[in-house]
């Protein structure tokens, strides 16, 4: 054994989970319309490729931004030498305004409270370094983004304690679930330093409700702990309702300049909303000066390059562009999501009703042989190897109920999505006929409709667990 650190030799990065394993399989045999039409279609990647044309058009019209010019004059030298970790003031201002615009300009963001980071991965980890000692815990509602095990725990030594959410109420956070997670942490002898939520949620594709946000703010107030709200999907909200940020709730509760507000931190990034994960632009927004100052110093470990900042400050300062972009992006996401939902339904599969994100949380419980995670893994393997779709099993997101999968829809063309749905439908029909449940997907959908829409006996039969006797 080489003399390597324990970090390197241990599994704590969590990248062995099936979430990543699916990717490896995909890398070996990626689908291509022409070169590899039988390859695996990547549906495990939450990328937003629907609006590149808008950005490209803008770039063509504004050659200065990418050309590192200002009013036709080169500013190459300034940018090449720029390394102030406070970032370009005009970029932070533009970013703050963009965040305000996404929140309907109901709340304001102070650029001096923004810390730039190389993506939200880095932003989240930096916050962990600022808020938790090794061995301290953060509570996360399940299911959650598999990467958090790496981002939050690996290098910082912090721990994640799950807040168990269930399908019975659409995976919403409840007070009792929060309390139970808190008690669980105490039982494990972990000091709870805060709660981290992604809003809108990855992998659920739903926004937190006001009730949940209120609950969270009350909870962190009473327990005197932090709240990190990861809002990197805030620009993808395509439903009828507008996005509600934790900032809205603080404002409604008149807590804007309170002690509590100092314990609320927001993480943002342009990877999802603008579809620029390669640009590595993330940010922390915090009301706590100490956190801002320390995180700014830490950002030396992963800064956003100056030409990226320059380019994006020009892009985001163009209010006409941002408003068109946000509108159009939401429209296209909505259309695409509907396509996925109806495609799934044709295969007799439903999903959690969603209103945001680049993915759906899909219910395949009826396709499991048994109600276990082993069965989920079996089904997942079939879907990756046989159906040749890389989707993410719920267990990788720490979901407590077997049979749920995250399926992404914004990283491929419409044709590819159609093909993916076709493959899935064929698969389900083949298993259906094997199980002699129903002869055609048409029947299955009918029975499904009956069950979800009007089969009251089915709903009533869902009896709760009765406590044991003494």
């Amino acid at each position, binding site marked *: 054994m080489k003399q390597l650190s324990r970090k390197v030799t241990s599994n704590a990065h969590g990248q062995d989970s099936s979430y990543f394993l699916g990717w490896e399989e995909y890398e070996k045999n990626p689908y291509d319309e022409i070169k590899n039409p039988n390859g695996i279609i990547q549906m495990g990647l939450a990328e937003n490729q629907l609006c590149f044309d808008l950005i490209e058009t803008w770039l063509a019209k504004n050659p200065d931004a990418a050309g590192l010019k200002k009013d036709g004059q080169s500013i190459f030298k300034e940018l090449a030498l720029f390394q102030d970790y406070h970032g370009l003031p005009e970029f932070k201002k533009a970013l703050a305004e963009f965040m305000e615009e996404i929140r309907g300009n109901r709340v304001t963001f102070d650029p001096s409270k923004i810390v730039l980071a190389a993506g939200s991965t880095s932003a989240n980890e930096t916050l962990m370094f600022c808020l938790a000692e090794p061995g301290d815990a953060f509570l996360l509602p399940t299911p959650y983004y598999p990467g958090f095990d790496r981002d939050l725990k690996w290098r910082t030594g912090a721990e994640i304690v799950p807040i168990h959410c269930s399908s019975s109420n659409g995976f919403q956070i409840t007070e009792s679930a929060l309390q139970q997670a808190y008690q669980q942490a105490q039982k494990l002898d972990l000091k709870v330093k805060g709660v981290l939520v992604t809003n809108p949620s990855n992998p659920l594709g739903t926004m937190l409700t006001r009730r949940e946000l209120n609950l969270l703010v009350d909870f962190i107030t009473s327990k005197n702990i932090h709240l990190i709200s990861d809002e990197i999907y805030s620009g993808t909200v395509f439903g009828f309702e507008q996005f509600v940020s934790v900032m809205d709730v603080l404002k409604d509760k008149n807590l804007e300049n309170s002690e509590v507000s100092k314990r609320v931190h927001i993480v943002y990034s342009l990877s999802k909303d603008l579809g620029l994960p390669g640009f590595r632009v993330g940010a922390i927004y915090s009301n706590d000066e100490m956190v801002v100052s320390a995180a700014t110093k830490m950002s030396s470990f992963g800064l956003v390059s100056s030409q990226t900042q320059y380019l994006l400050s020009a892009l985001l300062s163009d209010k006409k562009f941002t408003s068109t972009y946000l509108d159009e992006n939401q429209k296209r996401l909505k259309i695409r999501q509907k396509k996925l939902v109806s495609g799934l339904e044709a295969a007799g599969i439903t999903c959690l009703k969603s209103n945001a994100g680049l993915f759906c949380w899909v219910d395949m419980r009826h396709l499991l042989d048994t109600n276990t995670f082993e069965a989920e893994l079996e089904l997942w393997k079939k879907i990756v190897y046989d159906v040749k779709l890389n989707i993410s099993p719920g267990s990788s997101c720490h979901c407590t109920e077997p049979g749920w999968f995250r399926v992404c829809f914004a990283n491929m063309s419409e044709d590819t999505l159609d093909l993916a749905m076709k493959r899935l439908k064929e698969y389900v029909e083949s298993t259906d006929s094997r199980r002699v449940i129903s002869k055609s997907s048409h029947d299955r959908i009918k029975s499904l409709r009956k069950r979800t829409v009007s089969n009251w006996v089915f709903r009533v039969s869902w009896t709760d*667990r009765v*406590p*044991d*006797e003494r």
Partner: protein
Amino acid sequence: MRTFYPSDSCKESQLDSLNPQSWLQVERGKLSSSASSSAPLCRESFIKVPEPQILPHYKPLDYVEVLAQIHEELDTCPLQERSILYLLQYQVFRGLGETKLRRRSLQSAWQEATTVHEKVVFGSWLRYEKQGEEVITDLLSSCGKYSEEFVPLDIASYFPATTASSPEAASVKTNRSVSKNVVFKIGEEKIACQRRKIASLSAPFHAMLYGNFTESLLDEIDMSENHVSSSAMRVVRDFSVVGVLIGVSKNLLLEVLVFANKFCCERLKDACDRELASLISSMECAIELMDFALEENSPILASSCLQVFLYEMPDSLNDERVVEVLTRVNRSQVSTMAGKAPFSLYSCLSEVSMCIDPRSDRTLGFLEKLVDFAENDRQQVLGFHRLGCMRLLRKEYREAEEAFETAFNLGHVYSATGLARLGYIQGHRLWAYEKLSSVISSVSPPLGWMYQERSFYCEGDKKLEDLEKATELDPTLTYPYMYRAVTRMSKQNAKAALEEINRILGFKLALECLEIRFCLYLGMDDYEAALRDIQAALTLCPDYRMFDGKVAGRQLQTLVYEHVENWTTADCWMQLYEKWSNVDDIGSLSVIYQMLESDACKGVLYFRQSLLLLRLNCPEAAMRSLQLAREHASSDHERLVYEGWILYDTGHCEEGLQKAKESIGIKRSFEAYFLQAYALAESSLDPSSSSTVVSLLEDALKCPSDRLRKGQALNNLGSVYVDCEKLDLAADCYINALKVRHTRAHQGLARVHFLRNDKAAAYEEMTRLIEKAQNNASAYEKRSEYCDRELAKSDLEMVTRLDPLRVYPYRYRAAVLMDSRKEREAITELSRAIAFKADLHLLHLRAAFHEHIGDVTSALRDCRAALSVDPNHQEMLELHSRVNSHEP
């Protein structure tokens, strides 16, 4: 729990121990003459079933509608009205007999109180309701947790300080030159004061010293005629300079306050008021000061005295002087002591007083006040109906009629029962019958109590028909079963009589029904069974008196005991094992009662008793037994286990666990491990904790205990294994539990079969449980999950027959109807259960049905009623917000 109508304490009747049947004659008061008569003439007819009391509660026709209205008003009303709305909600739940819910409403009324008077009234009321729960507070403090919920308030701090504008500054300058000082002469004494300071005390003083009175020119003013002592005048002088009262005695304060009142010195009066309030040291003191406070219109003092009275309930209400003050006060005096909360105050007082003695003048006095202060129809309904009930008890028929009539005319249909009874008493039986008939025909659907009441006024088949209808509409009414049982007995059909009374005892352990069955068994010479019932009754209520309160139950128990074969301790354990295994909970209770008579290991027995009472759905009695177990624990580690359960059952899981660990620290025992495992399993959803639960239960099984308890532990271990899908291990546990005759393990084993996709075996397994168990309604319910729809339906019909309070069968049947598009019938199926049970799940489903058929108004009503039952029910909240958004 307190019973509402304590029985009259009659003189103990002397009973003949040789002829048990003769006891039944106590009923007819013929005892002394017939005790020796050997003729057992038609003994069965001696069993009399008393007509049920009219309940002194608010009982609206459609409680769902009223709860919904209250809920809606709570949403929109100003903050200061919320408390009184919660009080109304409390009254509705009171009428429904929902102890837990009404207490929660009272808690809400207290939490939402906006004035100090409401805080005091509701705080004291809760304190009174929670009497006997001090032990929980003690136990919590032993875990380092303190609750200070209902400590007396510092009333003065809730009153804003008086800042009466001093007349000084504005007008002083305009005055002629007068000397700076003024001397007040009282008798021989002269007290020099600063003229300006005294003038600033009040407008009258200012006018006197600077106005156009002769005094303004004088340097010396004689106050001798003003009933003020020199020492009081010195207090006034000092106050005029420093503005505070320091170290003044009570009597002097009283004098100064009178003086302040006379001369309109607002600030001075306020200061006296506050000082006096702080001096209240005892009940005596409060009684003394209350008169004064009311006389002198001192709100802080009066409220503080009232707080002492209320805080000391119920004892304080046995003090005539307290009652005299509280019933004598006029409107403005009430406002002095109770601010804007007079209705709440007299609601509380009348209710507590009714519990002590409903017939007393005191109760009457409070009820008259309650009626006086009722501000709206609903409050008047409650007041007048209650007043009617009390007048009826006091045999003041004319006044009773007036009160019932008023309540009835205000829309309280239930008050018709009072009118009917009064009519009947006055010989108008037909009129009473017609009264109820008109009520029945005027409402749709009618309610059980209407038919029950009408049955009193008719005979023969008509009577039986009405009683049948009453049971159909409200199976929880006990009278119809009792009447039918006794009638059958009188026709020499003992078996049918028993069958009838068993119908209700199978799901509702009502004392009066146990008493009837006891009598039936006596009549059948089955003393063993009679003993069982009286022992069960005494377990539920140790002071229970039989035969309309004429004979102490204990006495009868002793007498019957002489007529049965006595068991040794070993016999008792055998019997307990037998009955426990047959899921015969009442039988088990009785054996334990008997074992407690001898004094061995009482703690363990009381603990067993509490377990049985929980199964019989008597949580209050179970808690009492747990507390007795704690008192009789034979060792510290045993006591800690009972304390742990007490804490767990009162919602303090963490502390309960702590006690279990402490107990294990002293000695490893079965019960301590079992408690720890149980509390952990029920409080945690985390699958990882299941391994801890498993190892705790394994530890428990290694400790000595009897087979009854080990069977339970094996059973629970099985269910942990089922939850983490280790079906083979689970099956082993259940099979082992069955080997030690833990019969309920069939249920777990059935589940294992089911999970292994063997529905038929699951059904078989449940059938075995149904055959063995005495109480098997829940087993039928469970079995229905393991069969096809037709069988399921018949099983669920059986469940409703055995226990009409179980809600799942109604929901299932309604869902079946709904799926076959019979929406109306589906809703009716739910409504018939909702009529007698305020159940969240029933209301939830009916709301969903209404939503489905697009009846938004009804859906919204059901949502609101359901949320009144459980304000935090998640699915309900979602449905509510969805339905709400439909609203036009």
